C-alpha cells in the first residue's frame, strides 16, 4: 500500500485536481434537481434539457457579445446572464401550465410528463441550434493557464477549471445555504420540503413557493450548462447524459439535501478521475457503483433522513 502511494501519489494528486472541476459542474446541476425534488416532489427529467439549453444560450450570447465588439471580459458575466434568462423564460411557463396540473397525480405520471417535456425540448434544441458542435471558449481563454509542478515538470491547468468552477460551486452552495436558512422565502421553502401538508395548513402560499423553486432549479441547471459551455463542445444529446448522472448524485446524496449533493458530487467527480488514471474501464460505471454501494449500506442515501413508514 505504502509502495503504491510512493509510486502513484503524485498521479493521485493530479487526479484530485482534475476531479474538482468536474465535481463542480455536476454539483451545479444536481443541486437544482434536488431543490426541485425537495419542494415539488417531482423528479424532473427535463432538468437535463435546461442544462443543455443554458449551455447553448451562453454560447449564443457570447457569440453576440463578440460580434458587437464588446470587451472580452464580458464573456464571464454573459454566462450568468444567459443562465438567468433561460431559467426565467422556461421555468415559470412550464411550472404554471404543465406541472401544476399533475401535482396530485401519481409519481409515474409526473415522471412521464417531464420525460415527454425532455423529448420535446431535445428536438427543439436541434431546431434552434442545429446539430453542428457549438463552442464557446472565450471565458476559458480569458483566464489563461496555471502551471502546476509535477515530478520536475510542469502541467498546465486552465485557471477557469482549477479556480473559477470550484469557486462558483462553493459560492452557490454557500449562497443557497444562507438563503434557505436566513431568508423568509428560504425558510418557507425548507418548511414545504420538510412537511408539505403542515406548511400549507399554516397558510403558506404553496403555489408561489413551487413556482419560485422550479424557476430557481431551472436557473441552476442552466447555470451548470453555461459554466460547462467554455470547457466543452455542445452537441445534441448532452442533456440526456447530464440528467442520468444527476439522478445518481441525488439518489446517493439523499433526496432534498443540498450539502449532501455537494459532497456526493465531489465523491463522484473524484472517483471518476481516479478511475481514469488507475482503472479506465471503470470510469463510466463509477457513479453507479458508488450509488449502489451507498444505498446498500444506507437505503435513504448518505444524508437522507429515514422516512417514517406510512400506516
Amino acid at each position, binding site marked *: 500500500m505504502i509502495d503504491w502511494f510512493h509510486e502513484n501519489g503524485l498521479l493521485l494528486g493530479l487526479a484530485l485536481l482534475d476531479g474538482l472541476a468536474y465535481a463542480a459542474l455536476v454539483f451545479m446541476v444536481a443541486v437544482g434537481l434536488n431543490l426541485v425534488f425537495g419542494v415539488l416532489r417531482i423528479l424532473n427529467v427535463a432538468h437535463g434539457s435546461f442544462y443543455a439549453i443554458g449551455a447553448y444560450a451562453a454560447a449564443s450570447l457570447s457569440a453576440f457579445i463578440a460580434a458587437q465588439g464588446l470587451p472580452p471580459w464580458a464573456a464571464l458575466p454573459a454566462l450568468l446572464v444567459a443562465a438567468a434568462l433561460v431559467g426565467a423564460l422556461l421555468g415559470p411557463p412550464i411550472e404554471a401550465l404543465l406541472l401544476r396540473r399533475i401535482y396530485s397525480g401519481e409519481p409515474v405520471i409526473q415522471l412521464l410528463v417531464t420525460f415527454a*417535456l425532455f423529448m420535446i425540448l431535445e428536438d427543439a434544441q436541434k431546431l434552434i441550434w442545429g446539430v453542428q458542435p457549438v463552442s464557446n471558449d472565450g471565458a476559458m481563454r480569458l483566464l489563461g493557464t496555471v502551471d502546476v509542478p509535477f515530478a520536475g515538470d510542469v502541467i498546465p491547468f486552465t485557471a477557469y477549471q482549477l479556480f473559477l468552477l470550484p469557486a462558483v460551486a462553493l459560492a452557490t452552495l454557500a449562497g443557497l445555504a444562507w438563503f434557505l436558512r436566513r431568508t423568509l422565502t428560504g425558510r418557507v421553502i425548507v418548511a414545504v420540503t420538510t412537511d408539505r401538508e403542515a406548511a400549507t395548513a399554516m397558510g403558506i402560499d404553496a403555489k408561489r413557493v413551487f413556482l419560485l423553486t422550479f424557476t430557481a432549479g431551472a436557473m441552476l441547471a442552466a447555470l451548470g450548462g453555461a459554466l460547462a459551455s467554455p470547457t466543452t463542445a455542445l452537441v445534441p444529446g448532452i442533456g*440526456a447524459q447530464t440528467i442520468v448522472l444527476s439522478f445518481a448524485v441525488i439518489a446517493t446524496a439523499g*433526496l432534498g439535501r443540498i450539502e449532501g449533493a455537494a459532497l456526493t458530487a465531489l465523491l463522484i467527480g473524484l472517483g471518476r478521475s481516479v478511475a481514469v488514471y488507475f482503472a479506465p474501464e471503470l470510469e463510466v460505471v463509477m457513479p453507479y457503483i458508488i450509488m*449502489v454501494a451507498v444505498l446498500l449500506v444506507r437505503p435513504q442515501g448518505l444524508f437522507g433522513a429515514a422516512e417514517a413508514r406510512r*400506516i
Partner: protein
Amino acid sequence: MRRAEPLLALAGAAALVGIAYAAPWLRFVLTIALAKGLAVLGILLLLKAGQVSFGHAMYAAVGAYVVAFAAPGMGEALVLLPLATGIAGLLGLVVGLFITRYREIFFSMLNLAISMVLYSMLEKFYAITKGTDGIRVAPVTFAGLSPERESAEWAMFAIALLLAFGFGIVARLYLASPMGQALAGIKTRETRLEFMGVPARHVLLSAYVFSAVMAGAAGAIIAMTTRHVTPLLAYWTTSGELVFIAILGGAGGVLGPFLGAAAYELIRVHAAAAFADLWQLTLGIALLLVILFAPGGLWGVLARLFRRVRA
C-alpha cells in the same frame, strides 16, 4: 369490460394477423410491438404496486444478448427462448432480492443505476460484446426447420403472439390471485399488509421476477426478429419508453400494454416517415396529450367507447 377482455383479445389478435398479412413490412413492426407489450406487461405489474422501474430495459437486453451469444452454437428458437427468459428471470431474482427493499424514487433510480451499469459493461467490454456496434444474431431454426425469410417472419410473429396470449393469461391469473391483489396493498398502505401477515417484500419480489421474465422473453423475440443487438437496448431512454407505453396503453387490463405498444410503434414509424428529425417531439406531444386529456390511456378510451355502445 373485464369480462369482455378475452373476446377483445381474440379480436385484437385477429386484427393483428390481418394487418400483418395485408402489409408485410408491418409484420415486423407488429412482432416488435408484441414483444415490447410483453415487457410493458411486467412494468404494469410493478405499477400496480405503485413502483416505477426506470431500468427494465436491462432484462430485455439480457434476453437479447443471451440469444445473440447462444445462437451460433445452439440456434433453435424453442431452446433459445426459454434460455433467455430463464437467465433474465434469474438476474431479476438476484437484483430483486436487493432492490425490493426500496420504494418509489429509490426503486426507480436503483433500477436505472443497475441498468446503466449493464449498459456501460456492454459498451465497455468490446472484445466480448463488440461494443456499441453490437452483435449480429445468427439465423435460428424453428423446431429443427430453417424456413426461408417470409416463413421465418411469420414464425416469429406467431411466437410473439402466442407468448403474448400465454403471458397475458398468466398475468391475469396472477393479478386475480391473493399475491396479485396484495400488490395494490403495497401502493396504498404497505404496513397494513404486514400486519395481516403478508410479507410485502415477497409480494413485490414475485412481481419483480415475473416482470424480468417477461422482459427477457421480449428481448429474445426482439433479438431473433431484428437479428442484431446493441447496448442501446439497455439504455435508460429505452426503459423510459417502456414506461411511456404502459401509460399510453392504460393501466386497466392486461390488454393495455399490447394496445399501447402497437399504437406506440405505429406512431413512431409514421412520425419517423413524416418528419424524420422530429419524431421525438411528435412522441413527446402525443404522450402529453394522452396524460392530460385521456388519463386512462388508450385502454380507458376504449372502455368508455365500449360502455357508450352498450348503454
